[in-house]
């Protein structure tokens, strides 16, 4: 088995040893989404209007939170040095980490999203677009978050810094993702939006290993 697969299996094992972990990220997604109706009040009309925006914003935050310790945990216990000293190189390390993270957090978010949409009174004809957009968007969010996590590992500042680095980069995903759902709700075609999301995903897939590996190299010294 190559280094990528070995790392992926190890990370999944670490995550799945405690299935509660993934559940907790999803729970944050659900609870966080409920905050907005609490704050805004119960006019279901209004809620339905802002549902796509809220959904995406909370999905973004939920996917950001657990990213913090992605590399920091490895750096703090000395594992990062040893992962770097291997025949595999840092790029496969970055990609394996991102993949494991999406499987553990992104996928459950995707599965829970219809429930949140229901809580927010979203119209049923937006569900398909929501799932498609999240399917294309969440991997991008995770990939961008992985680079930010690598960058903030060197800085040893963790959480908030990570959010600050990732948020501006995540904005396009958020905008097009929410726009796709919005379009579906009013009956417009969503193909163009999904294409943009797919393009963003492709770009992230190409750039993440390079940028992530460069950032990690800094964290090693």
């Amino acid at each position: 088995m190559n280094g990528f697969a070995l790392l992926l299996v190890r990370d999944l094992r670490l995550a799945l040893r405690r299935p509660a972990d993934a559940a907790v990220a999803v729970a944050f997604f659900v609870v966080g989404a409920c905050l907005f109706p609490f704050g805004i009040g119960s006019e279901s009309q209004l809620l339905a209007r802002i549902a796509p925006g809220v959904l995406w914003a909370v999905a973004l935050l939920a996917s950001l939170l657990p990213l913090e310790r992605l590399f920091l945990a490895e750096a703090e216990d000395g594992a990062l040095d040893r992962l770097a000293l291997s025949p595999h190189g840092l790029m496969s390390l970055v990609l394996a980490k991102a993949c494991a993270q999406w499987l553990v957090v992104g996928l459950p978010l995707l599965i829970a999203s219809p429930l949140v949409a229901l809580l927010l009174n979203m119209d049923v004809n937006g569900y398909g677009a929501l799932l498609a957009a999240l399917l294309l968007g969440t991997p991008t969010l995770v990939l961008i978050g992985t680079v930010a996590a690598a960058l903030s590992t060197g800085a040893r500042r963790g959480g908030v810094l990570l959010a600050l680095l990732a948020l501006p980069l995540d904005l396009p995903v958020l905008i097009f993702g929410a726009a796709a759902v919005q379009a579906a709700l009013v009956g417009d075609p969503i193909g163009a939006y999904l294409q943009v999301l797919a393009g963003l995903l492709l770009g992230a897939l190409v750039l993440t290993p390079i940028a992530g590996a460069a950032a990690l190299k800094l964290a090693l010294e």
Partner: protein
Amino acid sequence: MSDFIGESLACLRGERPVFAGLDFSVASGGALLLTGANGSGKSSLLRVMAGLLPPTAGQIWWDREDLAREPDAHHARTAYLGHLDAVKAALTPREDLMFWLRYRAPHLNAYSGRIRADEALAWAGLTPLADLPCRVLSAGQRRRLAIARIAFDETADLWLLDEPTTALDANGALLLHDRVALHRARGGMIVAATHQPLHWPDAQTLDLDVLARRRSDAATRGKYFDNVA
């Protein structure tokens, strides 16, 4: 027969000079012990040797090949034991060993990796704990696990050990001693930083305190300043 040579190495950490004008050389089967007071730069030198920290000046060669040119090849042949043990609390010692042995040696498959891991566990005296999560390990048990990863890694020609006997009991130190002899007999090299006498036969010693005195010479200092300002 390979050799590992560094010439007039200098290291700055956080803008402070740690050592300068340092030379070392290790041949196949050789061992180099780094000694020196606290803060003399042993750990920094080990990181430089591993290629984790680029030296500020000087070159390192492996078989006359400049390290800076081929960092990946050097990473593949180097095993590094730092002050920290890199033990994940949720994995078991067996899983930990299987992962690290296979991550470093891509030719091991699940089956041969497992056999090798079991061998390493038995060596470290961790077989009874093999299937418990590593969080229950004591400081010395963790150190044994961290050493076992290197001691049973056949792909590494160069071992870099930072105070390997930390937290080990007498028996643990003996185990390490034997394994080091085996590695050297196979033609491997070892560089170890230590404060305890290790009693490895024919080991050279590099005392960084001597260098530190040299560094504080006005001449060296002038040279350092020349490079900086």
